[in-house]
């Protein structure tokens, strides 16, 4: 993007907005041409649609049992009535997978929202005030990041007791230092940018510069991270459920726990382990592909 003479004469303040508008437009143009983005967005859309319309899509209730067909160690496999077969309690596997998408989506979105909002608030404080606020927030983030994320999530979830809420809080808390660090870093580099310095030199107050220019221009990496964090959140939620840290209610179809429950039947019913595994892979892959494509599309270094 080259600046013509007329554009160059525009005030520095609008430059940051222009850069942003241009960046978003550019990003969309590049996303549309990236096969990675299209595959990722399609998978994500599929996942969200399945989650939202689960009651319409699922052929059975996820809790309805058809015990007449289930014998110990021998469950009917895929059939015309039950496309993915029945699970160990005679429940329709397909319906449970479809409803499981709901739990995955809710846990993912809520936990990333917790992590992103609290993290961004802390990052904003650190980036805007600097000094001891910055030092305190960043040292706390360092300490939390010194614990591997799954381990920290396990600890917090164990502390809060078995429930979906505690899984969401655990994964959310784990994400806080990541977002705090990210936003602070982006803000620091934006604060040194030419338009921010120019605005300051024109007498615009510091708070206004931060709120109107530095903060919005720092959001691109946050959006990328949020998408990638959704992928991680789904995996981690499945991991926690696998360890028995999800909901104590066995009727709730969590993919991770469904996998764990098949351990005893793995030899005779391997497909029951395959379906939830596949569901996790597809949803994680979707967010991951979309996140990576967003990262490439929003990277100003790659703009041409």
């Amino acid at each position: 993007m080259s600046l013509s003479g007329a554009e160059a004469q525009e005030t520095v303040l609008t430059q940051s907005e222009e850069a942003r508008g241009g960046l978003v437009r550019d990003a969309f143009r590049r996303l549309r041409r990236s096969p990675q983005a299209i595959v990722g967005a399609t998978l994500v859309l599929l996942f969200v649609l399945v989650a939202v319309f689960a009651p319409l899509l699922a052929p059975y209730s996820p809790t309805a049992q058809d015990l007449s067909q289930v014998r110990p160690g021998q469950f009917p496999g895929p059939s015309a009535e039950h496309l993915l077969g029945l699970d160990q309690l005679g429940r329709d596997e397909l319906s449970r997978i479809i409803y499981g998408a709901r739990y995955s989506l809710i846990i993912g979105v809520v936990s990333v929202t917790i992590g992103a909002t609290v993290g961004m608030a802390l990052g904003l404080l650190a980036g805007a005030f600097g000094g001891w606020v910055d030092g305190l927030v960043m040292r706390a983030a360092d300490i939390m990041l010194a614990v591997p994320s799954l381990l920290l999530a396990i600890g917090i979830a164990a502390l809060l007791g078995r429930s979906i809420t505690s899984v969401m809080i655990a994964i959310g808390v784990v994400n806080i230092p990541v977002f705090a660090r990210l936003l602070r870093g982006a803000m620091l580099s934006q604060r040194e940018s030419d338009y921010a310095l120019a605005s300051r030199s024109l007498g615009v107050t510091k708070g206004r510069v931060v709120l109107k220019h530095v903060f919005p221009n720092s959001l691109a990496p946050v959006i990328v991270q949020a998408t990638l964090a959704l992928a991680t959140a789904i995996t981690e939620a499945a991991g926690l459920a696998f360890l028995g840290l999800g909901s104590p209610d066995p009727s709730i179809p969590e993919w991770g726990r469904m996998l764990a429950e098949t351990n005893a039947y793995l030899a005779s019913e391997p497909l029951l382990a395959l379906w939830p595994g596949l569901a996790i892979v597809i949803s994680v892959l979707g967010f991951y592909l979309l996140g990576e494509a967003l990262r490439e599309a929003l990277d100003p270094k790659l703009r041409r």
Partner: protein
Amino acid sequence: MLRFAARRVLLLVPILIGLSILVFLFVRALPGGPETALLGENATPERVAQVRELYGLDRPVYEQYVSYVQSVLSLDFGTSITTRQPVVEEIARRFPGTVELTVTAMIIAVAVGIPLGFVAARRYGSWVDNLSTAGSLLGIAIPVFALGYLLKYFFAIKLGWFPTQGREGSLMFRNEHPTGFYVLDGIVTGNPEAAVDALRHLILPALALATIPLAFITRITRASVLEVTGEDYVRTAEAKGMTRSVITRRHILRNAMLPIVTVVGLQTGLLLSGAVLTETVFAFDGIGRFLAQAVFARDFPVIQAGILFLAVIFVLVNLLVDLSYGLLDPRVRTR
């Protein structure tokens, strides 16, 4: 280099102090407080009072913290609620297994990932490249426990090539374990059968555990080699007429190693937490499975000690990465 190393080690101190505070506060955040953590949730009021007295839980918090740090430094992590054994002994007994598993997984990930990423970069856009990119995407997306089941079903149940679970065969109960590393034990005690048996038990969980680091190492190697290959100094080396193998080793790989080392270190630390899941799938008796059982049983002395222990290892591995960075990159060392 010495000064660089000393500075890195000193930087650890606040992190370790922070960690100890975090873990100290952890049990105090429990509903019911640390008494529950120490005794479990069904303790009698008399026992609770006894423990409050014994551990000084009626004293001010900072005094409690000091005594907590003192007991940690003397390796006293309390007693497991489920096994009634000192936590430190339980951890020490299982640690070699987890190390064995983690190291095997990392060897697989490095031995496959670096050559694969390198070839993918040198044949940019070829089928090798596309296949490795697709494979590493899948490796990142697939949860370790799901892959663990897949491997277990095909290679252990269906094909019967490997055992389904545990660290050694049931006929191996007479094996001696002087080091706790079963493969090594087989070799030292002159029992090759035991070593092979232990290795066979390691393969599947290590493969499952290796996928994520393998995927990340392949990706970063490819990206890093691609970037370095385009650098001016590689062109300089070409202009100097250096042979292809010298350019690859001395100029491309040495520079490309910097980000690779970072990822290898980071992933090694993360493997320790991934082991919680993998060891559970394969009933592999290591720290991970012990911790998973403790979580299920709400055995808080074990959870608290396990988290502190694994986090400290994670921090130490990261220190090693920083130090090796100093060895590899003079710009870091001499700044």
